[in-house]
């Protein structure tokens, strides 16, 4: 995880009100989000390489998808789901400053 963007470890929820056309904004899970009917997606980067994604579920609560994450030399984060429960993808972290994680859409 040496190439991980500083401060990225932790659990984040999508602050979609702050998104732009090209960026998605995440804030720490304990941030005082305003209530929303649309379930917020979540990302959690654990120091041991475990990745937990929260996806909206059909019963209005998030569903956990557990995978692995690894920082790439170019700063991107590669996410895989070894259990075959999801397609791998890459996250392009643009910044992680003052409790605001900004990811390219």
């Amino acid at each position, binding site marked *: 995880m040496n190439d991980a963007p500083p401060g990225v470890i932790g659990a984040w*929820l999508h602050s979609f009100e702050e998104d732009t056309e090209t960026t998605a904004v995440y804030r720490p899970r304990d941030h005082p989000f305003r209530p929303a*009917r649309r379930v917020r997606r*979540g990302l959690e980067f654990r120091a*041991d390489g475990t990745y937990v994604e929260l996806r909206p579920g059909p*019963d209005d609560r998030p569903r956990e998808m557990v995978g692995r994450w690894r920082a790439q030399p170019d700063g991107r984060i590669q996410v895989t789901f070894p259990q075959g429960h999801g397609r791998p993808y890459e996250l392009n972290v643009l910044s992680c400053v003052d409790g605001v994680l900004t990811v390219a859409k």
Partner: protein
Amino acid sequence: MTEYGSPQPPSRDLCATMLVHRQLLNESMTYRSRRAAIENRALQYERGRRASLRTEVVTLPVVVHVVYNPKTPELNIGDAQIHSQIEVLNKDFRATNSDVGNVPAVWKPLVADIKVEFQLATLDPNGEPTDGIIRVPTDQLSFSWDNGVKASATGGSDPWPSDQYLNMWVCQLGGSLLGYAQFPGGPPQTDGVVILHSAFGTTGTAAAPFDGGRTATHEIGHWLDLYHIWGDDDGACTSDDKVADTPNQADSNTGVPTFPRITCDNGPHGDMFMNYMDYTDDAAMFMFTQGQATRMNACLEGTRASLLVGQVMRMPAPAAATSPAAAVAAVPAQQQPAHNGEVERLLHDSERLTNEILTDIRSALGLVTGDTGK
């Protein structure tokens, strides 16, 4: 894609791990089996192979669990706020809500009276009088989506028997959730709906734009087996809500959309974003459809039939009606003379469904354990 950080091979407690794994697998298969039976029944109703037996309005008994931290006294919401929620439900499920007239003309013929009403329970599980409201102080500052509010062991409130009552928990929820539900077929000890206190009812702590009581309408829709109108396919247009008269739409709508909103080539009328099972603001959702009514009836007369039978049992009956059979026989004579056969069919249907589910469960367990059941 290169793998990394492979998990360490198990070095101890393998037996316990396997037991937990097997338990989870069994539970999962049991749930899948139940869901398959429920879905099969809904399909039969939708295709007209079965029709609803119900012609009268049913009233479901509700118990509201107010779980609050005494350090935040406003979380102990008042009776008026709870009554305001029941009032909204009784309008929304009868299509007597004041905003139903806002349904676009093209969909007005689809507006459905679900013929379900809700009433705070008047008898508790022991038969004692109650106002149907339970107030439970907790040390928890807020609850997550993990069912913690549904058990006293985790700082919540234990449900009343979910085959007799609709359990509604009202509390502070984390993660900005408005509420969540459990589909029929899940564990009885967590059956019911959970609502954020500020999205409950129309008075007290209810706050805009979720102060119209529609979160509970939406969650009870799930509890009666409705899916989200967009099919939970993440915008793919490949899955729908298994209801034919709701247009396929790409993703959830939020806020207050403007009609028409076209997605998934569903023009010219587009998304039915004013349906209770979308994600719009309370002021922007105001209808169930006939197809959704059919699906809810399949659920009410199937896996949740005990609530209908229970209603018969709770109806005023002659004092001599001390046994279930006597009560069932007595009520139609007093109130609904034509429905004696209907009740019997409902009871028969419930028994048959239970047997079907038990058979499915035995089959599933046999698959897991290798026991063919012979």
